[in-house]
């Protein structure tokens, strides 16, 4: 990286943005002006509405045999309310109403002569009324029932307030009348109790009080933490998008991209400078919006809740900042990739909205109450920051997981930046009319380019289905769906779509006989090594009891033995090997250096085992299986090892033998035996064809 060139390009990008009237107006002026205008207008119209509602004297009518009783009730309730000086009764005190006699109140309401009418029914009349849907479907849950008026008992009269829900004045006045009537009914009940000899004040029968052990700061933190990330993502996306559109798509439109690409600046320097510029603009706009909000709060244009008390310690503030920096970098990189992908400014704008909405979904992860950072969510970009921020704001930071979040976000930003740099190197940036040669040629050439996309889609389907389809919630159904529909189906589809040769793509080759002996030696020891990795990971990221219980629950108790070995050993061993050490390894063999191939294939294999704490051991097993496939050039030895490994795990679990309780010495012995097996395989290797 040439830092002088980077600095020059960065200053150049900022200069271009600042000099673009469109950018300045859209990114800075409009947000700065629109917000106060919107707030002033909302406040003004609300005050006007309140004033108009308070100034109005509402006409209404009362009908039915109990009309006089209701009139009395209203009068007494109003008199009580007028005496009560509590602020909460302000609206009812200012409520002015007058009865307008009418022979047909429904018609009067329809003609808007009155705002609402009160229909009264005696107990007998009320019993004869048909049961309405609303009555029938009332929420009977204890929490809601406590807040609702009690269900009407037979013989109890009804006072029904009829109004027009689509008319603000009718709606508002009827609600006030209902409050007044309820207050009146309550007063009446209390009076009746006293009249019937109840000793003492009926209001003082029970004093229900509530208290929370959380401080105001903690409560505020919990509330703010839920929405902080999504608000930041919204601000950064809207702020950064304006710069991002101009920064590559705008350059393409103006024809300056070719000029820039013919200079001595390297592609990664150009991309980094643009990324930094978008990041800067996004942060500045976020800052402006934050400042705007602060000013509105000070000017009391925005009313904060009364017990709002945001308290963030220095450590928490620094931790938040450490998360927001890669968050901003990821968003900037995402926007840059979008801008690099689009051919024109307009096209970039068209793509922006779906990207915006899609990005908000993971950012809303923090509103899901049961979601903890110590789960697979830590691997989902944006969602992990969202949950981490909530936990920090609630004063429950999970530091190892926050570190993982930071790493995931940094990796995500780096990958997106790499994608942007690649897009700038694509010839379609200059010659829009031509497609990529791989797309044209199709077949195995295109497969190498698309293989990771296939596995990403498979991962997303497994992830979404596992969580959302209750019919697949049982062990057998989920396993059969994943193995046959996803891994098996995906493998067959890839073979068919890209016209891959079966023998080559699935590595269906024979191996030397000592390899089989080595596999038989390696199988139990490989499993023990996987357990050792699990134990080692526990030192880095302590595994909660809940996760261990969940893992134990994976092993179904009621399955016959043959089914256990079939579902846990044979099926995954065959199908997963064909998918991962077959098509995936075949697709990646020329894209990734041989030394990294086992790591990448192993990691992808691990990521398909969603529980965070299973990823490490399964990725480790994946690395070993890929290494064996590369040494033997065949999928078969790995298949046998996979079947034996899983079956051994099932057997130990079935017989109540806990491998996690083994001593370190056992782990070392297992490693030595496994190394011996690998040595035999190495000596008898028939390497995987990488060309």
């Amino acid at each position, binding site marked *: 990286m040439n830092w002088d060139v980077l600095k020059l390009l960065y200053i150049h990008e900022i200069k*271009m943005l600042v000099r673009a009237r469109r950018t300045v107006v859209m990114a800075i002026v409009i947000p700065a002006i629109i917000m106060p205008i919107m707030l002033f207008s909302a406040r003004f119209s609300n005050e006007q509405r309140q004033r108009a509602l308070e100034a109005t004297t509402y006409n209404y009518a009362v009908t039915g045999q109990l009309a006089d009783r209701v009139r009395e009730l209203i009068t007494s309730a109003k008199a009580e309310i007028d005496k009560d000086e509590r602020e909460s009764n302000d609206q009812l005190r200012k409520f002015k109403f007058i009865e307008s006699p009418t022979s047909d109140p429904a018609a009067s309401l329809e003609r808007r002569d009155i705002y609402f009418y009160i229909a009264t029914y005696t107990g007998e009349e009320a019993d004869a009324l048909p049961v309405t849907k609303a009555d029938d479907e009332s929420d009977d849950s204890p929490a809601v029932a406590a807040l609702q008026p009690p269900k009407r008992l037979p013989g109890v009269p009804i006072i029904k307030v009829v109004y027009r829900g689509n008319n603000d004045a009718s709606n508002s006045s009827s609600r006030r009348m209902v409050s007044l009537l309820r207050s009146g009914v309550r007063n009446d009940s209390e009076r009746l109790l006293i009249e019937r000899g109840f000793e003492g004040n009926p209001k003082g029968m029970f004093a229900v009080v509530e208290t929370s052990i959380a401080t105001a700061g903690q409560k505020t933190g919990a509330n703010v933490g839920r929405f902080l990330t999504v608000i930041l993502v919204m601000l950064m996306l809207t702020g950064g998008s304006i710069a991002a559109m101009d920064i590559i798509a705008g350059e393409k439109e103006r*024809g300056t991209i070719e000029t820039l690409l013919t200079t001595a600046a390297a592609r990664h320097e150009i991309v980094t400078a643009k990324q930094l510029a978008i990041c800067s603009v996004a942060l500045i706009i976020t800052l402006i919006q934050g400042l705007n909000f602060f000013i509105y709060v000070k000017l009391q244009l925005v009313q904060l809740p009364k017990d709002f008390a945001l308290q963030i310690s220095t450590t928490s503030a620094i931790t938040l900042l450490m998360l927001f920096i890669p968050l901003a970098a990821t968003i900037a990189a995402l926007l840059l990739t979008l801008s690099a992908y689009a051919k024109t400014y307009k096209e970039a704008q068209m793509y922006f909205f779906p990207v915006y909405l899609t990005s908000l979904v993971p950012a809303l992860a923090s509103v899901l109450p049961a979601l903890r950072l110590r789960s697979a969510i830590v691997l989902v970009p944006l969602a992990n920051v969202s949950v981490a921020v909530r936990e920090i704001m609630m004063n429950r930071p999970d530091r190892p997981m926050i570190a993982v979040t930071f790493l995931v976000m940094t990796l995500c930003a780096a990958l997106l930046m790499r994608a942007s740099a690649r897009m700038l190197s694509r010839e379609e940036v200059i010659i829009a009319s031509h497609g990529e040669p791989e797309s044209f040629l199709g077949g195995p050439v295109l497969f190498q380019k698309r293989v990771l996309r296939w596995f990403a889609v498979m991962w997303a389907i497994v992830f979404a289905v596992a969580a959302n389809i209750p019919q697949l919630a049982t062990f057998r159904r989920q396993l059969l769906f994943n193995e046959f529909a996803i891994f098996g189906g995906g493998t067959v589809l890839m073979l068919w779509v890209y016209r891959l040769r079966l023998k080559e793509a699935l590595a269906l080759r024979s191996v030397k006989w000592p390899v089989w002996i080595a596999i038989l030696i390696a199988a139990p020891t490989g499993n023990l090594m996987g357990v050792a990795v699990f134990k080692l990971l526990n030192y880095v990221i302590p595994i909660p009891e809940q996760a261990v219980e969940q893992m134990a629950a994976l092993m179904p108790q009621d399955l016959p033995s043959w089914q256990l070995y079939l579902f846990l050993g044979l099926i995954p061993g065959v199908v997963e090997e064909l998918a991962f050490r077959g098509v995936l390894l075949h697709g990646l063999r020329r894209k990734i250096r041989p030394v990294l191939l086992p790591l990448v294939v192993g990691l992808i294999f691990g990521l398909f085992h969603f529980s965070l704490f299973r990823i490490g051991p399964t990725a480790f097993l994946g690395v070993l299986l890929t290494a064996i496939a590369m040494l033997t050039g065949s999928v078969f030895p790995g298949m046998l090892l996979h079947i034996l490994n899983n079956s051994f795990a099932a057997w130990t679990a079935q017989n109540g033998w806990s491998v996690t309780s083994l001593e370190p010495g056992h782990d070392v012995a297992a490693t030595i035996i496994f190394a011996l097996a690998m040595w035999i395989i190495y000596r008898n290797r028939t390497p995987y064809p990488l060309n």
Partner: protein
Amino acid sequence: MNAPVVVQGLTKTFYDESRGEIRAVDGIDFMCNEGEVFGLLGANGAGKTTTLRMLSTILTPSSGSATILGHDVVKDPQGVRKNLGFFSASTALYPRLTARETIEFFARINQYPSDRVKERVDYLVNRFGIAKYADVRVEKLSTGMKQKVSIARTVAHNPLMIIFDEPTVGLDVLNALEVLESIKELRSEGKTIIFATHIMSEAEKLCNRIAIVHGGRILACDTLDGLRAQTGHRYLEDIFVQYVKGQS
């Protein structure tokens, strides 16, 4: 081989869904000598621009090789770009920069010694006669003025090798003449220039050697006199037509 430009079997294939595989450049070979203007003469779509884009490292060759001042266009693209000035109808200027800022930016980004940038900018501003509007934003300049600024930015870092791809497209006669004069001056300074055009008179006036390009191939490559001797025609237009018709 010490020639500043050596092109061997250079090929570029595009893939188009409607037209299939297109060989825009089909295994061309040529060399440019130091200080000469080498012309690529061909009709629209002959493969001139694609060739020059490969030489300037914007496009990657499908096969073949090319070196510019000893730098391979595939293996050392940055080395190529550092020593190359590239001018084409599609290399626009930044509208929000002034003429002076434009020249300065391109001098710096192409790593011209920073302590001499100001001096270089002043020199180019005076040399190309853009002093009057040096501090005006490019978006407010006329087409002719922009073309001068474009040439100045192309040579801002004083490259030894310059590529001009149809530099007079869209210009009126007077502005086109001024551009051609500028190229002549650069030749007299000893720069090696590749000049692509479809205008016969420009090639006749400027080029030391001319390659006739058609269908992605070089049909003939020689001095104007050499081409005349080979075909028996006096005018380049007739020479060009003879080669192209002979091909089709």
